[in-house]
């Protein structure tokens, strides 16, 4: 592995200092002169037609500046997902910014801009809407029945998408099996619970050009989608990159209603318009799609897979949105690819219902798959008396294998086995007792789960944006500024990307600073999503830095009257190899940017044309590959057999993420990923009234996620540092796998503790007590 100075250090960036003193850079703080505040009127009905909207009383209210109803809004069907082109064939354009057909409770039907949020809210109460209520359907089974209310004309039986992947000969595989296992595994709706609400401020110029501030994960996606739904050329929309946002986790990966509504209201009033969602609105804006997975698995007595069949049914709610893509990622990375099997068939169904729409959420279909696959493997091993570690290794890919997704590539680094063995040793796996054998009221258990293979981004998905870019500019004081379009939602790329640039340029980490960007000034970038930023944006940043370095050496070469080949950068200097002559980077930049005459000790010297100009480097490129990280997690838990309450005592994670750029930031990702995964496993669930479809968990009193008290006292993170040849300084990526494995790990540990197998998330105390036969 290359020796590094800045990469591999737990560098702390300037953001942290700013955030502990108030954090003024959050989009929620954007406040423009004359700014109006808008609110959305949302339908109480899950399925209805708007017959008439009377806004006359609202318009009379003092302070109200504009009202918007469906008739004012371009009726352009779109798909809100940021990371694919608007008209990508894999996605479904079935959404309108404001429609006269309501398909879920909470869908906006009108909006008001006023001088204060309170007045806007008051005005909403004065809008009179006549609805014709329609029959609604809230579960996928009913929605697929003949005669069920059809949500979208194009989707027969409400099936929005029905992908199938087939490999080998399934029937032959089952015929070859010694044992066949079947099971159905269900997951729920979970919210990413970013702490900063979705918020935007949209301003318009006299010529109708829009400037957009928003708490979102993709500035170019926002520009593209917003321009599309408003029928504007992209150059009429400029999205400003926020210095940082208050979390996202996939929940800010699509155009909301708020940005286009604010834009239209701004165009109407010629004022900046701000919309901040309430927590209730956030809860019904995006969710991890619930998926029901049926698995049928054929197996040899020695533990080799002979055939795997899976059918996944995804409830996408009122519009397909991410559901058209989540189902694919789920099928691939959740179900088919983590382990080897020659004969496999997977069928997916994305089904419309009158529930809230789905969204992106860390793992993007994988957590739903991992829960099913990793739970079933545990069941198989239990039934056949096989060692679950050896079982997984027998069926896992190996380093150097062709990449299962795209055989043009190989699994160049793949240290899954090391992850499994080291984590097992750390938790003392050998001491595990047989399932249900613990005595007493409180029983302990150990379990684990894996995301054996995870690939971010585009490989095999030609629709998905994957390219990244960067601009790096050197300053006369020897520091550098980096502009890159990925938004830091808390995962720390404002620091890690600077570390990569600093490493390449021979600077200290604090000499490179992440700076301003907007869609008019920096190269295109894919979103902050899919565990991709370190790898993809890191690759672009390193390339831009290499361009800077090239120019730096050229200028220094002129100054030192030597060839570039004899120069290298080190510790903020350009050094001549073979002598002790060196120049500080500051000196070189000053010389390059100086006017015609350069002052030196020997008096004024003329500068040549060739060395003039700012030292700047640009890169815009697609990354070379998509190497796979692996994630393994073991948990030790205890179950109170009289209440069903589960307490997680200890967690051991092992990851192969390639070179770790910033260990503290990586640890933080893992620990936070566990919090989300544990919440998903044990408590989180967005629930709706069966009759009306109204959200029952609209605030943190009812939507429960782990506080510091429920978290285990020990989370041990092991990083197996492979040296990925295609990654910047050997790095791969991290964020998502650590969030997909906690649910199966906890489910398997619960089984080990009390012998109860729960196949439906969240595993509430009630389900465990029922499993114990105590209800």
């Amino acid at each position, binding site marked *: 592995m290359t020796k590094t100075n800045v990469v591999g250090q737990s560098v702390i960036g300037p953001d*942290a200092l700013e955030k*502990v003193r108030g954090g003024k850079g959050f989009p929620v703080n954007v406040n423009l002169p004359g700014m109006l505040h808008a609110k959305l009127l949302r339908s109480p009905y899950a399925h209805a037609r708007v017959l008439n909207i009377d806004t006359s009383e609202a318009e009379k209210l003092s302070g109200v500046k504009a009202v918007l109803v469906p008739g004012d809004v371009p009726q352009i069907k779109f798909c809100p997902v940021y990371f694919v082109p608007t008209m990508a064939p894999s996605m479904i354009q079935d959404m309108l910014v404001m429609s006269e057909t309501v398909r879920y409770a909470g869908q906006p039907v009108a909006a008001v801009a006023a001088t204060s949020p309170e007045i806007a809210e008051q005005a909403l109460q004065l809008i009179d809407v006549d609805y014709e209520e329609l029959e609604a359907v809230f579960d996928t089974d009913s929605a697929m029945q003949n005669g069920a209310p059809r949500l979208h004309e194009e989707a027969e039986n409400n099936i929005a998408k029905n992908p199938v992947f087939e490999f080998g000969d399934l029937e032959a595989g089952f015929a070859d099996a010694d044992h066949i296992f079947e099971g159905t595994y269900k997951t729920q709706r979970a919210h990413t619970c970013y702490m900063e609400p979705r918020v935007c401020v949209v301003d318009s110029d006299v010529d109708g050009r829009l400037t957009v501030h928003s708490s979102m994960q993709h500035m170019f996606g926002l520009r593209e989608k917003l321009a599309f739904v408003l029928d504007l050329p992209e150059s009429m929309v400029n999205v400003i990159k926020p210095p940082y946002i208050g*979390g996202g986790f996939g929940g800010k990966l699509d155009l909301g209603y708020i940005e286009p509504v604010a834009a239209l209201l701004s165009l109407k009033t010629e004022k900046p318009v701000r919309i901040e969602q309430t*927590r209730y609105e956030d809860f019904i804006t995006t969710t991890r799609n619930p998926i029901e997975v049926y698995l049928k698995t054929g197996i040899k007595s020695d533990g080799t897979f002979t055939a795997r069949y899976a059918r996944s049914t995804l409830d996408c709610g009122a519009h397909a949105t991410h559901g058209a893509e989540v189902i694919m990622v789920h099928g691939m990375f959740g179900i088919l690819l983590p382990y080897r099997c020659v004969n496999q068939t997977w069928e997916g169904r994305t089904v419309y219902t009158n529930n809230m729409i789905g969204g992106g959420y860390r793992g993007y279909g994988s957590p739903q798959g991992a829960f099913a696959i990793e739970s079933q493997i545990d069941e198989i091993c239990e039934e056949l008396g096989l060692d679950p570690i050896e079982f997984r290794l027998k069926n896992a890919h190996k380093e150097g294998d062709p990449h299962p997704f795209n055989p043009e590539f190989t699994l160049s680094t793949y240290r899954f086995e090391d992850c499994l063995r080291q984590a097992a040793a750390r938790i003392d796996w050998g001491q595990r007792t047989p399932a249900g054998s613990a005595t007493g009221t409180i029983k302990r258990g150990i379990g684990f789960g894996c995301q054996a293979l995870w690939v971010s981004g585009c490989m095999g998905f030609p629709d998905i944006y994957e390219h990244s870019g960067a601009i790096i500019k050197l300053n006369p004081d020897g520091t550098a500024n980096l502009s890159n379009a990925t938004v830091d939602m*808390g995962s*720390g790329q404002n620091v890690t990307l600077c570390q990569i640039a600093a490493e390449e340029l021979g600077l200290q980490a604090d000499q490179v600073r992440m700076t301003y960007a907007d869609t008019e000034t920096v190269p295109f970038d894919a979103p902050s999503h899919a565990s991709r930023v370190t790898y993809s944006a890191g690759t672009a940043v390193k390339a831009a830095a290499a361009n800077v370095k090239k120019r730096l050496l050229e200028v220094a070469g002129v100054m030192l009257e030597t060839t570039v080949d004899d120069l290298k950068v080190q510790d903020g200097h350009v050094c001549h190899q073979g002598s002790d002559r060196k120049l500080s980077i500051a000196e070189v930049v000053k010389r390059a940017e100086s006017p015609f005459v350069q002052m030196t000790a020997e008096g004024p010297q003329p500068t040549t044309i060739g060395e003039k100009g700012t030292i700047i480097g640009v890169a815009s490129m697609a990354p070379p590959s998509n190497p796979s990280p692996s994630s393994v997690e073991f948990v030790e838990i205890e179950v109170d057999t009289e209440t069903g309450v589960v307490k997680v005592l200890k967690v051991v994670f092992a990851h192969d993420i390639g070179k770790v750029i910033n260990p503290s930031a990586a640890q933080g990702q893992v620990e*936070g990923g566990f919090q989300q995964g544990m919440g998903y496993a044990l408590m989180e669930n967005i629930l709706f009234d069966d009759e009306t479809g109204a959200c029952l968990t609209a605030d943190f009193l009812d939507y429960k996620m782990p*506080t510091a*008290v429920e978290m285990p006292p020990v*989370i041990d993170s092991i990083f197996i540092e492979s040296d990925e040849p295609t990654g910047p300084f050997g790095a791969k990526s991290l964020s998502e796998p650590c969030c997909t494995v906690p649910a199966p790990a906890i489910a398997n540990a619960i089984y080990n503790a009390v012998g109860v197998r729960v196949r439906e998330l969240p595993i509430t105390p009630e389900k465990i007590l029922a499993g114990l036969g105590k209800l």
Partner: protein
Amino acid sequence: MKKSVSFEVNGQHQELAVAPSETLLQVLRDQLRLVGAKRGCDSGGCGCCTVHVDGKAVYSCMTFARSLQNCKVTTIEGLTKKDELDPLQTAFVEQGAVQCGYCTCGMIMSAKEFLSKHEQPDEDQIRHAIAGNLCRCTGYHKIVRAIKIAGQTTDLAGE
């Protein structure tokens, strides 16, 4: 009807016209442009808006501003004295306890009151002390560690 309320914010006297149902959070963010207290849920469920009233941590989103006559309010902006960070602020930065940072100010304000009353607290005490503050990025571990470290250096008499 708006009425005037006079109180102190970070040591400065304020006299502001306040509506009957206006909250302290609204006053801080909208009138005084002190944006350290964040709106995360507006219902006392997330803790991002935590500030001190007379030295006690409160959810500013559910504190009626009209109840603050003659009170002393301290926000995160009041914690840094002459550019010198509070030990909690330093510990949060150094321990990597700040990720997205949206919960950070509220978390620090809760910890601040807690540390003023508990010498060298253990981790379990700290976890309960911040039970009213949600974080979605960190898993709380580095936050707990930061508070513990700040607790070892904080002088109880100092506040």
